[in-house]
């Protein structure tokens, strides 16, 4: 878990919120999975969401997707995590990314991209 915290996150967020997200991402009391859990908050028309999902598919990364155009609960969760409304928001094991930055996502996942 310390590893995740030390890497920091892409957007400013209160420490408590970060800790909460890390706990939620790693419910197994600090067990670091080889593959981090990945959540994508998207809209059906979002181009960069599609590029991000294509990137995950190409690299064999499993992810959970929430359509925030319809799912208001997920939208609130996305705003809480990222403090903003733009999509995509991508949560990789507690690290929150706004937008599609292939290099940053590769680094967070520990893959070559």
């Amino acid at each position, binding site marked *: 878990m310390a590893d995740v915290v030390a890497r920091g996150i892409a957007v400013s967020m209160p420490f408590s919120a970060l800790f909460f997200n890390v706990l939620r991402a790693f419910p197994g009391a600090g067990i670091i999975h080889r593959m981090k859990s990945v959540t994508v908050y998207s809209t059906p028309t979002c*181009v960069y969401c*599609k*590029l991000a999902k294509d990137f995950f598919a190409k690299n064999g990364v499993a992810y959970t997707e929430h359509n*925030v*155009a319809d799912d208001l609960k997920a939208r609130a969760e996305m705003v809480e995590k990222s403090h903003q409304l733009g*999509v995509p928001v991508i949560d990789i094991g507690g690290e929150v990314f706004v937008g599609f930055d292939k290099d940053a996502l590769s680094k967070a996942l520990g893959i070559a991209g």
Partner: protein
Amino acid sequence: MYDLVIVGGGPAAVAAGVYAARKKMATLLVAEGFGGQSIVSADIHNWIGEKSISGVALAERLEAHVRGYEPAIEIWTDRVESVALASVSPRSFSVVTKKGKTVEARAVLIASGSRRKRLGVPGEDKLDGKGVAYCSICDAPLFGGKDVVVVGGGNAGLEAVVDLHAYAKTITLLQRSEVLRGDPVTQEMIRAWGNVHIIFNAAIEEIVGESFVSSVRYKDAKTGASNLLAAEGVFVEIGSMPNSDIVKGFVELDEIGRIQVDPRTGRASSLGIWAAGDVCDGLYQQNNIAAGDAIRALLNIYSYLHSGK
């Protein structure tokens, strides 16, 4: 030593890449991604040969077309940081990338395009992503039932109105001048919609909001009156700025930073450097024009490399 380095991944760069590969020039294309700025278009109706194609689909086709020539053409997913003269005779250039690679080439084609212009008003940075949006196709669904503002009456602004129409309660289009510049076909369509209001001569002064956008303040350029418009979203579509920093101080740029080129050849002011597409000082920013201009430049590069002229 490459014959040619092509900088960019939009229609100009891809068109030049295809021609360069077919001419068996030792070419490296460096792009962060493919498709150019149109990638965020929901529907492109004027890419010749396609009645209708989405920006993503066009990007995929462009990429597939040029990748069809690998390994004759080398393609790196990277970003060019600088271009500099490496040797005067024989003339060559060194190209440095973000990932720390340095390569040499006899000619360089800059097709790095342009990026979104920002309003530069108070509140824009603070509320970026918090109601201030630059990708209408991406973010429009998040503004369902809300009052939104679109800034800019060019094609991009009109497209943003179209993207938002399916979701927003009302859309107010703020245009700085007295006329819309976008295609009349789209103008007629949006003017017919009951929830679209167009305000002319409107200069944005401030985007107002605490944690999210609540309103927009604009000045009526005719009366001088300052008006506050309640809105939860502001979509900024006011044009673009050239990505010419990589050759700044090295080739001549115009007053807004676009690379000055000879329209007959695409040559920039420094021998061995060409430019094409939206990074240049051409009159029109269009995918088809960018592709054509790049092909003209490429053919001129070919004759330069083979005959020195």
